[in-house]
């Protein structure tokens, strides 16, 4: 096993990996940009290396700086986390060439599966169903128009190197096509250093269900069943759960999708953690979408249900160990759900809301796991993804898991910035959600049918007025109590930012 591992990432996933390293007895090396000197992952790591200014292009995407840090600190392996360089075959290759183990699949597997168009070709060879669309990137507007007519509108533009909905655009009519390609390409360039986009047929209001696969370097390959990630806004997952309400009702689909995922992975000579994403249409046909050749944000729901620690497994497999179990050993228990807590304002188009966290209370107790990347007093930088933490709940059944998640959301308090916590409360108590009628258009439809909220609870307003009056009184009487007056300035700063 490795003695020291560098984590080429930041935020909650860096913290989560640091915890796993500590549990296995491996020293951790964090990297940080100018914006992250005070970040939690830097505090928690055994060692830390500065890798450049705030813009990720000059730090978290800077291969040379990261490899230098690994050399200087004497790491034997590099964990890429998710996002940033995690699905970049050149980075994986560069790690290997520099003598570091890349904790993930081989560069070759990433090339075969990392790009969406290439992945589609592998899937077709592996006899897995795919969404009708282009096998090649868009090369000209004429080619695009022809393809769109053949596929039939609405079509979806996607970044070839894409992920997380970046560089993705839905096009409903030919008139919108050219502008949409421009937008998608520029966003793809910014996000993935590749402006290539391709085209797929839009599957209307599909479910998004993915299969976790795991392989070792000795040819053993298993799947850990599914996660349903249908709740998305702007192609960004918001709530994920395991098991999927649909597959719980139709378990034969689970087996079929699991086998398809393993076939695709095998065709690409895959090892370490990977996720095959599928769309499921209203007739319950499933289509392979893409393989995420890395650890997923939502991996904890699989961990809580299977009892496995995927990061521990990643490290063991990367160090050459065999998978310690086979397919039939994989057992399931209960129901897990994850809410991604973002610094954003749901009442304002989910607009990002960076700033100083002046007060933070995270939930705890039975069945609750918080994978957090923040701490009270920390300022959420404007330079990166606004995810603060992942709130994960487990219980023996989906209904109780939802009730538990509501309880945890009510315990969760973040002051100084906006978050989507109140929004989760609404979704979690929504009847359609509770019945498991999920699809990727769910949230948009929810906003349409969302009950118009009149004046909020009069009792709570009364309490708020009592507290505000009391607070103002305390703050203005005599010399203001010191701690508080600093809070005042913090609060103002965060709101003025």
């Amino acid at each position, binding site marked *: 096993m490795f003695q020291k591992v560098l984590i080429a990432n930041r935020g909650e996933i860096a913290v989560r990996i640091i915890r796993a390293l500590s549990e296995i007895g491996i020293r951790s090396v964090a990297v940080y940009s100018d914006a992250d000197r005070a970040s939690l992952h830097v505090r928690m790591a055994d060692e830390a290396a500065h890798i450049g200014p705030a813009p990720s292009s000059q730090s978290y995407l800077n291969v040379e700086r990261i490899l230098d840090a690994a050399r200087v600190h004497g790491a034997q392996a590099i964990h890429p986390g998710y996002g940033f360089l995690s699905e970049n075959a050149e980075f994986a290759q560069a790690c290997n060439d520099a003598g570091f183990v890349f904790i993930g699949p081989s560069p070759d597997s990433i090339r075969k599966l990392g790009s969406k168009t290439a992945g589609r070709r592998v899937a077709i060879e592996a006899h897995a169903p795919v969404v009708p669309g282009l096998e090649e990137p868009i090369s000209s507007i004429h080619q695009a128009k022809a393809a769109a007519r053949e596929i039939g509108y609405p079509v979806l533009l996607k970044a070839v190197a894409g992920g997380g909905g970046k560089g993705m655009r839905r096009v409903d009519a030919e008139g919108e096509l050219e502008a949409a390609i421009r937008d998608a390409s520029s966003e793809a360039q910014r996000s993935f250093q590749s402006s290539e986009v391709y085209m797929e047929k839009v599957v209307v209001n599909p479910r998004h269900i993915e299969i976790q696969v795991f392989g070792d370097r000795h040819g053993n390959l298993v799947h850990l069943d599914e996660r349903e990630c249908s709740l998305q806004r702007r192609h960004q997952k918001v709530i994920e759960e395991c098991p999927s309400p649909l597959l719980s009702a139709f378990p034969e689909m689970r087996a079929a999708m699991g086998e398809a995922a393993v076939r695709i992975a095998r065709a690409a000579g895959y090892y370490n953690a990977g996720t095959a994403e599928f769309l499921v249409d209203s007739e319950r046909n499933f289509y392979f979408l893409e393989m995420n050749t890395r650890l997923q944000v939502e991996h904890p729901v699989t961990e809580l249900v299977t009892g496995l620690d995927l990061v521990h497994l990643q490290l063991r497999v990367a160090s050459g160990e065999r998978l310690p179990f086979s397919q039939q050993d994989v057992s399931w228990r209960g129901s897990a759900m994850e809410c991604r807590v973002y610094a954003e304002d749901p009442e304002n188009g989910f*607009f990002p809301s960076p700033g100083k966290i*002046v007060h933070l209370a995270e939930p705890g107790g039975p069945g609750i796991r918080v994978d957090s990347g923040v701490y009270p007093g920390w300022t959420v930088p404007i330079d990166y993804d*606004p995810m603060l933490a992942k709130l994960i709940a487990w219980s023996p059944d989906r209904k109780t898991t939802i009730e538990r998640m509501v309880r945890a959301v009510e315990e969760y308090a973040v*002051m100084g910035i906006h978050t989507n916590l*109140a929004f989760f409360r609404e979704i979690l108590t929504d009847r359609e959600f509770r019945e498991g009628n999920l699809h990727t258009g769910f949230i948009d439809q929810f906003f349409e049918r969302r009950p118009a909220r009149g004046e909020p609870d009069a009792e709570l307003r009364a309490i708020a007025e009592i507290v505000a009056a009391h607070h103002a009184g305390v703050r203005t009487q005599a010399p203001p109590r010191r701690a508080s007056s600093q809070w005042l300035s913090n609060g103002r700063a965060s*709101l003025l930012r």
Partner: protein
Amino acid sequence: MKVDIREIEPAVYSVLRGGKSFTARVIPSLGGYLVEVDGREFVLDVRDPRDAARRETASAGAGRQNLTASMPGKVVRVLVTEGQEVASGQGLIVVEAMKMQNEIKAAKPGRVAKIHVQDGATVEAGEALLIIE
């Protein structure tokens, strides 16, 4: 009704009123206070345009939506023109911040009364973007 209020952490209060227990957290919001009580937010003594906007878009009553930027960013594209009728949920402006393009949508149907910004403009927090009536 008997009220027992204690500041148990800086700017965090425990309130017992009529036998019920509440936890309230207070931070200053421009000119007034933002008070969170059991997960619900109340803006008291409002002067901050953002909070004004938030409460209007949040409130049930139809009518004016005064859309403002909630943080510094860059206007990528204005998707509507003044006088245009827009449907609920229709995209109005694409603003980029935190490495994300964010499409600001109409919360309710209406007519675009005024557009304050154009493509490429840099906007500050609280700056007015457009008004829908």
